[in-house]
Structure formats: C-alpha cells, structure tokens
C-alpha cells in the first residue's frame, strides 16, 4: 500500500548489490524524491504509508550469505534474504535464529529488523536487536555505514544496529546483517489446549512458576483454531506453549505444564512434536497479522507479563458485548494483541477505544478500504524531540519513507 502521486505509481528498483542500492538512494535523494525501501512487504501495515513515494527500492536481490562458519555460531547475510532461506541455511548445520516473524517465506531479514518485530520466544532467546551483532546500512545520502562486526562481544564505537532496528527504514536501509545464531534444540514440543474462560486466572498463576518454563506461552481468544479437526463451534480460548531444549528437559517441562493445566481444570492437551510443532508455532505467529475476514485492524500493546491476561480481558470487553475483539496474551513477554473487524468508522472508533484501554498500542496489521487511514502509532513518546532530531540529521531532505514513522517522522 503506497500513497504515491495519484497519477503515477512509484517506480520499482531492484538493485543487485549494496553498492547499487546506495547509488539508487543517492540518485533519488539528489532528485529530491522520496523512497520506500521494501523487503517482503509483510509488515508494511506496521507503519503509516509515507507521505510521498516516488520510488520503491526492493532488496530482493540482496539475498546472499556473506559469511557463515557454523563453528563460530555467527552468520552474515544480505538484507533481502528471506527468513525461510536463512532458516534453511542454518538448519543444514543444526542451527537457528529465533526472529519469529510472520510469513518467513516472504519476510526478509532487513524488513524484519526495520519493523522491529519482536516475537514470542524473546524471553528465552532475546530480541532481534540482541541477536544482531553487526550491520551495514545505506544512508539517505547514499553512503554505506557499518557498525558492530562478526564477533559476539563488541563495544567498539556506538551500537548503531540498535538505532536502525525498529526504525522502519527512516534512518537508513539495511543492506547486510550479522547475527549470532543458536544451536538447534534437540527436542521441541508444542502444546495446544482449549479451556474454560473462567479458569484464566488460575492458569496464569500456576504457569509462571514452572521450573522448566516454555519458550513461548500464549492465550489466544477469538482466533481460528490452530489445529485442523478442532471442533468447529468451540469458541473457548486456546492456550498454547512451545517447549525447546534437551529431550529430558522438554519432557519434564511438558509433564509439569500438563499437570498445572490439569489442576486448573483443563481436561485435554494435544502435543505436537518436532517439525509439526515448529509448523504450528509458526502458524500461531502468522495468525497475528493474517487477514481473518474483511476490513480489520490488529493492534499490539506492550506491558508487563503479570498483566497480560487482565489487559487482554479488558481489550476483549472494551467495545461492548456485541463487538467481538480477538486477543492474544503473551504470558512471557507481556505483549497483548487485539484485533477488530468492521466498517471504516467502527474501526477508527475501535482503535481509539482500545488505545484508551491498552495504552500505547501500535497497529501491526490492517486491511482497510482504499482512502481510509488510521494512525499506526498513536501517541508519540516524550523523547519524540530527540527522535525528530535524529531523523533530521540522518535524512535532512526526507528521502526515506517520510511521514510513516512515530510522530510523523
């Protein structure tokens, strides 16, 4: 969704390498054009459309692995490489990178970093910003600037990667990223249960004290069932957990988890193993931003893990008994996702009301009719002045996705 001039669609450029990408940016900047640098386009709704867009620079061809010695547990790759391709490369050596973004077959490394996506396994493995050990970005004036490196401990100069992650391409475009990667856990299980809404509190209380905690733990409410064959018409909430680790610890974790669920009155838990577990876990991530039906908006609000269940409950009832809100409460990270459907007016009112209830909430997915825009960001933080100054310094002519970021940056 690009808000370009109504007369002409923005031209699309697909540079072959970092040098070409930087040159394309410089040319656009010199011509006073506005540019959107684009990866897989899976998270474009997580920012506002740029005010102007004359050219789209696609990173598609920047998809090479630049540096990978599996014994170092690090990898460097082009920003346009998809997460699925990266995962496949790593899996050949028994390694993985838990970025946990939706639609990995399309999502790119650069796009995932730029969107600042933080997945449900971050309490176990860290966020994308923590796994990134070095990067090269193309700045608005067409220079290439590197920071960090290929080592896992590095305090040489400012940690510029932190600044670019989550900047939605408004300061520069990732052309290359280096990560520390992890050995693939030998065992993986995914547990799915339906439960009676009344036992929510009891569940939450028991689960945070598990000695072998899951790496992801979500309560989904109002989303389509994750497993085929689940009884249609069963609208009870779903609790899902992913366990990863050694065979013995995963077995113990699942056993304790099931007994905690049992004590809270949850009768049945279905367990998936290995590749099935990974596939269904990915489906749970995809479902956050996947279109459900018609016009809709999905918000994500951060908060404390201890409050996730309450906040999701508040969101679910925020629009009254007749307006359903589908929610996801992440019991480990505190994230709350809330999705609503309706006509344009209802969506705008619904987003405003959900922001009253959840505090600062960012739109992560939207399916809106043409011409309808709802601000993806909501209230800007108090440090917006510093952020604006950073934008002005890095991109003085407003070349990079102008207007799409927080506070109109």
């Amino acid at each position, binding site marked *: 969704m690009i808000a370009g001039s109504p007369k002409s669609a923005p031209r699309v450029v697909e540079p072959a390498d970092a040098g070409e990408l930087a040159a394309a940016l410089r040319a656009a900047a010199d011509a006073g054009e506005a540019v959107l640098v684009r990866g897989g386009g899976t998270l474009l709704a997580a920012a506002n459309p740029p005010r102007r867009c004359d050219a789209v620079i696609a990173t598609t061809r920047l998809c090479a692995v630049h540096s990978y010695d599996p014994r170092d547990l690090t990898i460097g790759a082009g920003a346009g490489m998809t997460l699925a391709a990266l995962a496949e490369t790593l899996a050949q050596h028994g390694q993985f990178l838990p970025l946990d973004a939706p639609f990995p077959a399309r999502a790119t490394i650069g796009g995932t970093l730029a969107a600042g996506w933080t997945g449900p396994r971050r309490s176990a493995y860290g966020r994308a910003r923590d796994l990134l050990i070095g990067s090269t970005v193309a700045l608005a004036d067409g220079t290439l600037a590197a920071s960090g490196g290929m080592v896992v*401990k590095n305090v040489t100069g400012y940690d510029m990667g932190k600044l670019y992650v989550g900047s939605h391409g408004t300061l520069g475009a990732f052309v290359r990223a280096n990560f520390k990667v992890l050995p693939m856990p030998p065992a993986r299980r995914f547990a799915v249960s339906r439960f009676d809404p009344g036992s929510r509190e009891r569940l939450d209380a028991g689960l945070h004290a598990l000695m072998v905690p899951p790496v992801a733990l979500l309560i989904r409410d109002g989303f389509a069932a994750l497993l085929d064959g689940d009884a249609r018409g069963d609208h009870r909430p779903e609790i899902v957990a992913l366990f990863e680790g050694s065979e013995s610890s995963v077995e113990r974790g699942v056993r304790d988890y099931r007994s905690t669920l049992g004590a809270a009155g949850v009768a049945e838990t279905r367990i998936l193993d290995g590749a099935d577990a990974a596939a269904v876990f990915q489906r749970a991530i995809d479902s956050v931003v996947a279109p459900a039906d018609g016009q809709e908006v999905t918000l994500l609000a951060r908060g404390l893990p201890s409050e996730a269940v309450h906040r999701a409950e508040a969101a679910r009832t925020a629009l009254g008994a007749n307006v359903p809100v589908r929610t996801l409460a992440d019991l480990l990270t505190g994230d709350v996702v809330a999705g609503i459907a309706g006509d344009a007016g209802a969506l705008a009112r619904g987003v405003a009301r959900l922001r009253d209830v959840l505090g600062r909430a960012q739109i992560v997915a939207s399916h809106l009719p043409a011409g309808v825009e709802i601000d993806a960001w909501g209230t800007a933080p108090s440090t917006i002045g510093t952020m604006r100054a950073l934008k002005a310094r890095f991109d003085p002519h407003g070349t990079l996705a102008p207007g799409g970021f927080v506070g109109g940056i």
Partner: protein
Amino acid sequence: MSAFTSRLLEALGPDVVRTEPEDLAVFAFDAYSEDRLPAAAVIPRNAREVARAIAIARECGEPVVPRGAGTGLCGGAVPSRGGLVISFARMNRLLELDVRNRRARVQPGLINLELSHAIASQGVFYAPDPSSQKISTIGGNVGTNAGGAHCLRYGTTTNHVLGLEYVDTHGAVHRVSLDDPGYDLTGVLVGSEGTLGVITEVDVRLMTVPEAVRVCVAAFADVESASEAVSAIIGAGIVPTALEIMDALITRAVEAHYHAGYPENAGAVLLAELAGTHDDVAAGEALLARIAKDHGALSWRAARDQAECDALWAARKGAAGAIGRIAPNYYIQDACVPRTRLPEVMHEIDAIARDHQLPVGNVFHAGDGNLHPLLIFDRRERRQVDAVVAAGTEILRTCIAMGGTISGEHGIGYEKKESLSLVFSPDDLAAMGNVRAVFDPARAFNPDKIFPAGARCGEVGPPVHA
C-alpha cells in the same frame, strides 16, 4: 574560586560539591594511566541534582564526565579536559524489585554484585558479571556495555537493560524504554561511554536462578590445545554459561594468592560452567569432558560444592589483581576474534610478546573469543614501556586481520580512540557522529573519548572549554 564552582556550590551546597584539589584527586583517574584534576566534582543524591549540575556546567562551558567506580581500564572516566565529574557514589540504591516480571529499577551507583546479593533470596539474579563486579557499578557497566564471564550464554549488559532515565546536555531528565515506540534510544545510550547522556536510573532484566550449576576445571598442556577444545565445544552446538581459559603464568599467580584448587603445573586451565536442570547439567558435563579429553585435556574435574565453585570463580575474577602482586606493572589488552580463530590468535600473541621480549599472561573469555592478553613490564624502563605500546597495537591489528575487533567489553575510552579508525571507515564514523551531534552537539559529555581526533564525529569544531 571560579564562577563555575561558586555557582555549583550555591545551587547544590558543600555537601554535594567538591572543589578542593585534595578532594578532587580521587576523581582524576580511573584504572588507565592518564589523569587530570577536574575543576569540580559533584556527588548528587538524585536526578534533579544531576540535572542542575549539568545545566550549570553547560552555561559555564565546562565538560561533564560521569563516573561509576572508576574501574575502567581505558580512561573512559578520566576528565581529560578538566570540567565537572559527576560521581554516583550516593545514588546507589535498589529502587524497585519486581520478581514476578523479572525486573528491577536501580540507581546507577549500585554496585553490580550488591544487586545480585540483594535479590538472591528471591530466586533471581542479574546476569552481566564483569570481573570487577565486586566494586564496579551498574551505571558504569551500562556506560561501557560491560561484559563478563557469563556473556557466553546470557549476553552483555545491553541485553539486560530494559529502560533508562538520563539527563541530556541541557539538563533535562528523560525516561526511555524498550517498550516505547520509535527509535531505540535505550540501545543507543548503552555503551556510549557517557558521551550522549548521563544515566540516572536503570531498569534491568533479571533471570531465574537455574536449578543446577556445575563448575568444572580441565588442565591442558598449552593455551593452543585448550583453545582448540573451546572451539570444538562451541562447534558441537553446546553453549555452556561460561568457558574461560587461564595460561600457566596466570594460573600460578592466581593459585599463589587464592589457593582455589587450579592445577598449578598445567600449561593452561579451562574453567567451564554449565547451568540448567540437573539432568542437562549432568549430560552437558559428560559431553564437555569427552570433547576436552579428545582435545588433549590432561585432567577434568567438577567442583564438589558451592564453596569450591565460589573459590574457583573468585580466583578467576581476581586474576588481574593477582598478577599485580608479582609484576611491577601490567597492561591488559581487550580484543575479540571469531571463536574459530582462537588457537591461531593465541599463537600470534605469543609470538608478538616474544618479539618484544615481554612476558605475557593470558586470561580470557574463550567461549566468546574475547581475549585479555596481559603484558608485564616495568614502567621505569623506557624500552619496556615503548614495547608494551607497540605490542598492544600489534595485537589489535592481528585481531582485526582475523575478522575481530579492538574491544570486546572494556570500551574504547581515551586509550583506543585513535585505533577506532582501524576498524571503521570515515563513513562509518560519520554515522556515529550524527548520533553524537544530536545528543551532544557541543561535545561537552565526556570529550576526548571513543572517537579519533579529526574524525567528523570527534573533537573537531569549537572547543567546549576555552
């Protein structure tokens, strides 16, 4: 008394402000070789007083240098242009502890180890553990993005800071958090060595104390074979909580001082720590022991009890101090290489030290590829001083040539600022300079640090102190 010091005294009183040379002497240096007296020091009690002092310094054109415990090895806390030093000795409290959500809010002057002691009974701990943790502060650790022995599994300070309160160059107080929308100002401030803002509160992430922890010691014939074992362990997909190596010189010095039970006759010692469930720790030890023996380990044993674990760790973390007892002077280098290059780089460092006729000890975070060659010299011998400087630079160049970098955890500070351009191009440095220009256009916060003179982000332009 200058206008600057009298304004500070007037605003904050004699209890907070120090102006006499004998009182200022303790703020003149850190663990690096340079020193200089500041014009004044303040020991504020809260962020408001920090902000007031910074505003006055700004109005008087004086630079500002924040100071933790002064344990930094690179001159990062040295007031190289005089001005104002802000000491956090009084802002040393644990403000809030939220065990359920695994987080705490602390003041920057809180000593690292005191935080973990204060919360140990709750089953949680603060993971970053630089060897200086008995005296260094959380604020200082945040400034340098300090590492430690347990980074291998848990990451460095930046991975454990959830938010900050800081005072900007105008004397305004801000709060930032990873949960804020917009640019990650938290991540940019951590590791900026006091050049972007002065941190007055830190929200830290806590971790659950593992069910089991096991500390093991293996002896090897030499550092190269111990390094080979470490590379093989990482390559096998095992990530212990720590993998540390000490060579013969360090091991003997440490044993003479601590009697912790390290094998004194070994050419190198590997200290490995595993943590997790009882089963995982037992299985992990068996695997580690097998890999170590396949790579020439002469012995392998696990500590019997907590007291022995503590003793082994205390000795390892006290290694530099133990060398101080046997050497007239020593110089610790800090560099990092990709882990597979460890055996090779250890060989090169040995050759460099021999070329310069300097004894070298090696004590390092092997699992991270983070080296600390320790060059022993006598400051009174001019030849040895020159040799140390030359050897140190050669070691850095060697690490860069192997795809590494010039500081893994100590920071750049004053010492390595000219070396930064060995790693980064003028364009790379200009991007960092953009950040500096936004946060601190007058370069009043910790001038002369991190950036080379003459770089676009460095000290070019109008001086802050006429």
